[in-house]
């Protein structure tokens, strides 16, 4: 009877072993996925910085144009 129990325990251990192998594969895949996501994030951040710079340029330009408009218009009226 003891022998029977040991046999069961042995089977369960083997089952655990194969489940752990599957888990390990899953975890490896997730780690790779994460690495890919991180490189996408890096690209996004670079793009974000570029967009911000461009936005500032446009805003500055806009501001200059607006001020010029105000400065010049009264003179032209005369």
């Amino acid at each position, binding site marked *: 009877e*003891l022998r029977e*129990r*040991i046999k069961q*325990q042995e089977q*369960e*251990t083997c089952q*655990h072993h194969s*489940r*752990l192998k599957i*888990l390990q594969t*899953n*975890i490896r895949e*997730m780690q790779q*996925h*994460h690495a890919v*996501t991180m490189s*996408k*994030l890096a690209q*996004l951040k670079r*793009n*974000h910085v570029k*967009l911000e710079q*461009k*936005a500032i340029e*446009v805003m500055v*330009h*806009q501001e200059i*144009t607006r001020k*010029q*408009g105000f400065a*010049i218009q009264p003179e*032209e009226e005369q």
Partner: protein
Amino acid sequence: FLDQAQKINDWDRLLIGNADKILKLNTEVEEIKANQQRLDNELEFIITQQSELEGMLDSLEGATQSQDMSPFDQHA
């Protein structure tokens, strides 16, 4: 004989503990996978947002430049 029975009990306890932990790991792995999916979607959202912003900036830039083509010329 008693010793062996004790050992079998120990193994049993270890096996049950392992089984629990494996289940827990499984749940966490599923959770992480779902989270990765969500993060992927957020990334996609940001990419879309960025191309929208880029489009806006391009047309704003165009508008500002065409305003410059006005009587009060810019030599710079």
